[in-house]
């Protein structure tokens, strides 16, 4: 008889669940930023902008180049300057917005009166062109990365949700005096020794004893720490999430409370009628691309800077782009709050897969979600069901 529950939870530690959920929400913020670009363009033009992931990629490269300009290519900054991070963010957003304008003006606008499939093919072609064409001109091998040192807030915040088990803490503390005693004895002996690197037999024995006691203490200490449920929050990612929230608030303000935002909603509701009502449709479409691309640029700069160990290459935007698209569909494509919700859910789902111990399938879960959503609720969580009319 196989114990099913033990199979299911094999390798799962419930203590790490809060940490993984938090990771999911933080990375989900980035997905949400990219998803906003997809969903806004889809809302206005009914076009899946496949090249959006590549705009994201170019944003990361912009941030990289700016950091090279400020700190040099060696990326071993002696003094961190305060304006580096804001400058990287702003330049990534600006460059991405410009790329968005260029793509819309020269590739998508000529396609607007063609069948929809033509603009889809253009979008895919552009995405490939940027991925492979970028390899000719951008540094790809060895894959560069933005050094973690440009970020002055590298340390972690740790919160304890539960205290370490008292018995383990006591056991660890009990080992400490012995370690201290061994250390004192070793220090005494070291004063007598002539050559620190060539100890006598007594010295060697004392040093060995000290190392044993020290490792026993460290092990007990580690066990005590891991018995507590804690959350480690890198300060960089906290900044990332805060900036994400601020940008989303700005977007919300633009879309809901400005004249252009109202025009944008009108165009999204009905392209032709909006044009008849005197809205400059081309201007609004450009604005949509600018906003979406700038958000993608911000997300790219932040994920390349604040998440450690991220390497940049020309395929940097491929998976985040596709996942963000799935997030947009999950929330209801064309729906702005839906994109944020979908992005966060996507990040959480991904980190739950990692938590369950299947991290090699992390990238597949997005598409599984997509297929399930399309099967059961194609309009997405917050989307409204529209019947297509002739």
């Amino acid at each position, binding site marked *: 008889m196989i114990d099913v529950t033990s199979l299911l939870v094999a390798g799962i530690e419930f203590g790490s669940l809060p940490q993984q959920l938090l990771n999911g929400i933080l990375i989900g913020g980035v997905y949400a930023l990219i998803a906003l670009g997809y969903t806004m363009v889809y809302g206005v033009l009914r076009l899946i902008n496949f090249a959006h992931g590549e705009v994201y990629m170019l944003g990361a490269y912009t941030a990289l180049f700016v950091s090279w300009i400020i700190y040099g290519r060696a990326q071993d900054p002696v003094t961190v300057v305060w304006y580096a991070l804001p400058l990287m963010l702003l330049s990534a957003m600006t460059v991405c917005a410009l790329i968005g304008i260029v793509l819309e003006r020269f590739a998508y606008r000529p396609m607007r009166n063609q069948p929809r499939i033509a*603009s889809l093919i253009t979008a895919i*072609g552009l995405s490939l062109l940027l991925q492979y*064409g970028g390899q000719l001109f951008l540094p790809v091998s060895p894959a560069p990365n933005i050094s973690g040192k440009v970020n002055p807030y590298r340390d972690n915040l740790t919160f304890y949700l539960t205290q370490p088990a008292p018995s383990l803490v006591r056991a660890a503390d009990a080992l400490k005096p012995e370690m201290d005693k061994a250390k004192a004895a070793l220090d005494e002996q070291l004063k007598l020794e002539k050559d620190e690197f060539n100890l006598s037999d007594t010295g060697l024995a004392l040093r060995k004893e000290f190392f044993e006691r020290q490792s026993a203490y460290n092990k007990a200490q580690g066990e005590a720490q891991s018995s507590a449920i804690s959350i480690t929050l890198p300060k960089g990612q906290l900044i990332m999430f805060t900036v994400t929230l601020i940008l989303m608030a700005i977007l919300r303000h633009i879309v809901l409370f400005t004249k252009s935002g109202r025009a944008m909603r009108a165009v999204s509701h009905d392209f032709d009628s909006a044009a008849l009502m005197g809205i400059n449709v081309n201007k609004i479409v450009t604005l949509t691309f600018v906003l979406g691309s700038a958000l993608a640029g911000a997300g790219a700069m932040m994920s390349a800077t604040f998440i450690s160990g991220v390497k940049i290459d020309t395929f940097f935007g491929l998976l985040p782009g596709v996942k963000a698209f799935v997030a947009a569909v999950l929330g209801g494509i064309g729906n702005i709050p839906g994109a944020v919700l979908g992005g966060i859910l996507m990040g959480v789902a991904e980190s739950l897969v990692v938590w369950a111990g299947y991290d090699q399938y992390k990238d597949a879960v997005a598409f599984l979600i997509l*297929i399930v959503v399309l099967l059961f609720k*194609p309009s997405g969580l917050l989307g409204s069901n529209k019947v297509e009319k002739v």
Partner: protein
Amino acid sequence: MRFWGVRLASIAGGIGLAVLIHWIALSQLSAFGVRLVVLAGLYVTLAVSLNLINGITGQFSIGHAAFYQVGAYAAGLFTVKVFSSQPLTFMLWVPVAMIVGAVVASAAGLLVGLPSLRLRGDYLAIVTLGFGEIIRILSQNLKVVGAASGMAIEPKMLSQSPMVWLCWLLAIGSIALCRNLLQTAHGLSFLAVREDEIASSAMGINVTRTKVAAFVLGSALAGAAGGFYAHYEGFLIPTQFGMEVSFIILTMVVLGGSGSITGSVIAAVALSALPELLRNIKTIPLATVIGLTIGVIAAVSLGRRWSEQLHGPVRDRVLKLSGLTGLCLGGGYLLGLGLRALPALSEATTDGNRIRMVIFAGTLVLLMLVRPQGVLGHREFGLGKWLREPAR
């Protein structure tokens, strides 16, 4: 009598053509040439089957290589597990394995098609893209198919005498299948769905079922091609079936003209040789690439503007536009030569392998700007004009 005569003659003609290609390839061409012929046959199958989905039924699948891969892995695994314990000779076995590949790939097609084809076209694109990614991740992690280090297929075809005829028989069979399908009521419903989903559903066509049928049929043909590829190559690794392959097939279909079977065939033969030939070009100055790119962009943007103002006979217009294109490309090349004087670009080179995907992607974008319906559009050309009996 006449009915059967025409059909038997066509079947004999198809088999004869496949055997002829086999004979010419093996007796006249080098090993590299034979490889090109085999790849051309496989790409013809893949392009025609994708054309059935994208061109004829008007859907938009961009992950066709995934079905190719599913077929290859299924057939390969089947051979590895079963071949030693069954009586068939290898020559008879390969078609059986290809059928297995086709069946498994069509099952995958059903799985992917059912949820996404109920909805409008855009979703299929992203679902097929995602399906390709899932298949890639699975094939890199599953131990039973060798994970990332690959799977050896034993036995495989002898490299000096591969079964070229089988590969081309499959290609000709796919062409015949698609062509004949379009003469039937089922095929007409495919075309009707492409032209207008709402109107065709009002005419009593079950739109979802039609789209799924086309998708499953296309996947099955791709799976059969994969089954052949597994036994031809003898070794499968996940990177052979990357997204690049999907996009190459897509470019073939789009370039040839979505909906034109002959267009897909011509484009597939022409483009399948391109990556293999480019692989041998080792150094291309980056300055020339930049110069030619600028030339192409100039040709397209000027040509688009100019062609709206041109009037007169078709021949004059074509001549003027090709003159403009030639001028722009020549100018681009000269610009490239000039750019080499810049210190940053004088030494920079690239190789054919790296620019081939740039060429494919550029072709897609430019084609959409210049001629979105593809070179042949929906037109076919064939011997029909001459073979058809005169109207009485």
